[in-house]
């Protein structure tokens, strides 16, 4: 499964479709956002992909706590790293979008704040792991913190921003979310962008996992 090429070719095709249709395709003309609504394919799709990766990461963390196989820890770490990269990209693309539509790159919007907090919690996860020299302890404590960090994602990104006034869709300020998504955009978004970015992240993660497994096999064989 990891080595098969069909889903990698699919990933390239989907992303090519996303980028081309994203920039050349027609989009509805909404006030304020105008053409920048194309960022839906990048910013929002990357956040969705990030949630997928972090969910996979926490699933492997739970598996590790139940069965203690080192390979679960490697999977958990690499998916978390890919999730963190996509989350950071999400914040960057988001502030870029905000710069054009809301007037400033950083607007103290609750969802922006929540996203930064969530990313800080995951960065702390990486720092925490690095500070533990013993491999097994690192895996176990890392798994515990991973579960904790994932649980904190929900209040910070999904729940709190919806409870207060926000410039993002879905907040109490009255900005409707994806209720009236145009059919053309929905095709590119659901059919192209979300699967494309998700497959790309899985590709990157599996490559890194294979590398880590090879390194570990090398290390244990040498002794």
């Amino acid at each position, binding site marked *: 499964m990891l080595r098969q090429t069909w889903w990698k070719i699919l990933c390239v095709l989907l992303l090519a479709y996303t980028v081309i249709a994203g920039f050349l395709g027609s989009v509805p003309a909404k006030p304020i956002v105008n053409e920048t609504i194309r960022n839906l394919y990048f910013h929002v799709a990357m956040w969705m992909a990030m949630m997928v990766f972090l969910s996979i990461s926490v699933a492997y963390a739970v598996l590790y706590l139940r069965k203690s196989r080192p390979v679960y820890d490697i999977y958990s770490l690499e998916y978390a790293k890919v999730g963190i990269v996509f989350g950071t990209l999400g914040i960057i693309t988001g502030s870029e979008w905000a710069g054009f539509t809301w007037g400033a790159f950083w607007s103290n919007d609750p969802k922006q704040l929540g996203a930064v907090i969530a990313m800080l919690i995951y960065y*702390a996860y990486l720092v925490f792991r690095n*500070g533990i020299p013993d491999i097994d302890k690192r895996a176990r404590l890392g798994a515990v913190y991973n*579960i904790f960090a994932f649980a904190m994602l929900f209040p910070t990104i999904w729940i709190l921003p919806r409870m207060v006034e926000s410039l993002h869709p879905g907040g109490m300020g009255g900005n409707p979310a994806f209720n009236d998504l145009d059919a053309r955009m929905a095709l590119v978004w659901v059919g192209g962008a979300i699967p494309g970015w998700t497959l790309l992240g899985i590709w990157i993660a599996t490559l890194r996992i294979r590398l880590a497994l090879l390194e570990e096999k090398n290390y244990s064989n040498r002794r």
Partner: protein
Amino acid sequence: MSEHIKNIINLLRKDLLLEVRQQYTFYGILLYVTATIFVLYLSMGQPEGPVWKGLFWMIQLFICVNAVAKSFLQEGRGRLLYFYSIAGARDFILAKLLFNALLMILMSGVSLVLFLFMLGDPMGHVGYFVLISCLGGVSLSLVFTFLSALAARAQQGAALMAILGFPLVIPQLMLLNRISTIAFEDVLQGGLGWMLAIMAALDLLLIVMAIILFPFLWKD
């Protein structure tokens, strides 16, 4: 069930007795509180409402980090193993959470008194603020107790606990800051019920996570 409660009460009593006897730890925190607030007063004078509020929660954060840091870091490895084997990991963590919550309530009270004394009293409803500061103290202590358990296992100490902890408490601090406005002005705080509910839900989430995850931490 009653055996669990007995265990928890015994562990709590053990912690309380230790605090009463080794008084240097308790007085150490008290001195830290006093010194910090005094330095704050010297630099800020008597600020107005919003600034007062923000400063209060910042000081609470640092007091909590210092007060809770010692809870796991001061016990030796052998003694921890002894406690786990006689009482079980869950009872142990519940007793620790309870003890640190009580400690923080006390420290919140002390720091509130000192704040009112030195930095003035810009608020209208002190009674509300007493309750809110207790809630805030308990919430912060829950986060840092669990993190101190993690950091103690990693042998990294208080610095790592602070690094891990600050992102996690930001939502709580923001909520507390907004909730405390009801003590300052007579405005109708929109969504107050929701904010209190979310605070309570966050605290409950933390307690549940601590109870579930702590047993995995102590197996060495």
